C-alpha cells in the first residue's frame, strides 16, 4: 500500500461522526434556557477513539454562543445531592463560548471514586453502591486537589458556566440560570420523558439537604453533615433557587430511585439527606427516619415548605410501593408548573465529525 493510500485510510478512520443531543439556548417550551447544553454519551466518544476533551472541543466548535457540554457514562453511577445513588453519571463537563473552551477554566473531568471499604464506612450512603450497583464505576465531582476553579465544582468560558458537576448552568452576562437534575439528564440520555418546569420552593429547600462526601459533586471534603441543612438560611432557604427553569425526571422515576435506596437500608437523616422528596417516600411507605438526627435548622427550612417536624415524627399506616407510585403525582412534592415532554421534543439530534 502506498503512503498516499495509507494516509487516505487514516483520514477515513478519523472522519467518524459523534452524535449528541442539543438543548438550544433561548425559549424552549416557555422556559428560558440560558446556554445551549450538549448531552454526549461517553461510550460514543470511546467508540470514536478520541479523548473526552477532544470530543468537547469538536462540539464547542459547533456552538457559536454560550454552551455547556455534559458527558455521561450510562453504565456508571453517581449520587444525588441528598445521597441517593443514581444509575448513570457525568464523566466530564465543559463550558464553551464563541466556539471554544477556555483552555484554563473551561473543562474538567470528573473523578472515578476508588472502591474503598474505609471510604464506604465513613460515608455510609455509599453502601448503596455494593447493594444496588455492584461492579459499576462510581463517578462524583472533579478531583478536589486538581480542579480548575478554587471554590465551586464549575467550569467557565466566556459567558457560560456549568456548575455543581454539570447540574446547574448559567449565563454570566445575562445572569440567567437553570438547574438540570441528574435524574432528568439521565432521562434525556435515554430519550425518555422529561419534566420541564420551574424549581419552586420545595426544590429550593431540598437541594440543601446534602450529605458529606470527600469527592462530592457539589462540594468536596465532607463539608456537610447528613441531617443538617447545607443552606443554613432559615426562612430564606425556600427563596434561594425557587424561580429557576429546571429539567427533571418524571416524579415516578425519582420515586423509584429513592425507593431503591430505602430498600438498601438507607435511613433519611442518618445516611441520606432529609430532602422533602426522600422524607415523603419514607414516610408514606413506612421506612425508618432518623428524626432525632435532623437538626432544628433543617426542620425549620423543611417546615417552611410544608414538611412539618410533627408530621415527620408521627407514625402513620404505610402504603404499598404500588399505591405510592400510583399516587406519586399527588404525594411527591417537587417542581412547579411541570409538563412532561419526550426528550426528543426538547433536544435536537446533532452530530460532529471527529
Amino acid at each position: 500500500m502506498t503512503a498516499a493510500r495509507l494516509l487516505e485510510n487514516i483520514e477515513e478512520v478519523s472522519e467518524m461522526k459523534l452524535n449528541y443531543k442539543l438543548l438550544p439556548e433561548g425559549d424552549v417550551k416557555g422556559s428560558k434556557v440560558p446556554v445551549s447544553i450538549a448531552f454526549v454519551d461517553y461510550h460514543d466518544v470511546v467508540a470514536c477513539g478520541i479523548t473526552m476533551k477532544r470530543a468537547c472541543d469538536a462540539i464547542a466548535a459547533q456552538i457559536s454562543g454560550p454552551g455547556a457540554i455534559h458527558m455521561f457514562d450510562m453504565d456508571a453511577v453517581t449520587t444525588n445531592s441528598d445521597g441517593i445513588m443514581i444509575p448513570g453519571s457525568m464523566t466530564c463537563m465543559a463550558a464553551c463560548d464563541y466556539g471554544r473552551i477556555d483552555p484554563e477554566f473551561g473543562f474538567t473531568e470528573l473523578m472515578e471514586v476508588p472502591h474503598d471499604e474505609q471510604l464506604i464506612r465513613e460515608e455510609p450512603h455509599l453502601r448503596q453502591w455494593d447493594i444496588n450497583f455492584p461492579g459499576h464505576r462510581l463517578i462524583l465531582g472533579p478531583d478536589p486537589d486538581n480542579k480548575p476553579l478554587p471554590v465551586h465544582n464549575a467550569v467557565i468560558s466566556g459567558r457560560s458556566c456549568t456548575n455543581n458537576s454539570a447540574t446547574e448552568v448559567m449565563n454570566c452576562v445575562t445572569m440567567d440560570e437553570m438547574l438540570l437534575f441528574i435524574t432528568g439528564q439521565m432521562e434525556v440520555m435515554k430519550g425518555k420523558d422529561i419534566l420541564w418546569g420551574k424549581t419552586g420552593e420545595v426544590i429550593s429547600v431540598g437541594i440543601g439537604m446534602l450529605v458529606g462526601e470527600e469527592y462530592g459533586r457539589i462540594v468536596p471534603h465532607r463539608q456537610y453533615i447528613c441531617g443538617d441543612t447545607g443552606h443554613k438560611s432559615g426562612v430564606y432557604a425556600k427563596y434561594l433557587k425557587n424561580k429557576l427553569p429546571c429539567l427533571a425526571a418524571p416524579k415516578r422515576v425519582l420515586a423509584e430511585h429513592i425507593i431503591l435506596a430505602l430498600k438498601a437500608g438507607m435511613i433519611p437523616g442518618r445516611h441520606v439527606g432529609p430532602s422533602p422528596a426522600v422524607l415523603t417516600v419514607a414516610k408514606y411507605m413506612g421506612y425508618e427516619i432518623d428524626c432525632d438526627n435532623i437538626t432544628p435548622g433543617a426542620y425549620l427550612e423543611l417546615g417552611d415548605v410544608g414538611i412539618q417536624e410533627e408530621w415527620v415524627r408521627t407514625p402513620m399506616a404505610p402504603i404499598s410501593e404500588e399505591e405510592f407510585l400510583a399516587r406519586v403525582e399527588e404525594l411527591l412534592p417537587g417542581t412547579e408548573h411541570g409538563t412532561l415532554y419526550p426528550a426528543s421534543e426538547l433536544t435536537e439530534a446533532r452530530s460532529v465529525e471527529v
Partner: protein
Amino acid sequence: MFMMHTKLPSFIQQLKNAALRHGKEVPCEIKGLENLETAKVQSARTGRLEREIEELSQTPGVLRLEVRILPRVPETLHTVVIKVLGEDGKPIKAVLDTVGIIHPGVDCYLEGCPEVDDRRPPVGKH
C-alpha cells in the same frame, strides 16, 4: 518596599500617560477598578502594562485604547463584613462570612477582536 507596589491612583494615571508618550492624543480608558477605594498594585507588572500600552498606542488606525481589568481566575471568594453601627457611626458588632462570585470569562471582552496576543503567564507562575 515602597517600589514593589504602586499606589492605585498612580497606577491608573501611569497607564493613561503611557498612551500619550508618543505625542498622539490617544485616550485610554481604564475599566474594572471602579469598586476599589484603595489598593497597592504590583509594580513590575505596572511597568510591563505601561510598555504594552505605549506599544499599542502606536497601532496604525488607533483612535482610543480600552483597558479592562478582571479577575485572572473567573471565580473569586470574598469576605463579607456585616457591621452594626450605632450612634455617631460607632461599630457595635460585626459578622464575617464569605461569598463566591462567578465572573464572565475573558473571552467576553475579546469578541470580534481579530488578533489576540496572550502574554499572561500560567496561573500560579505570576
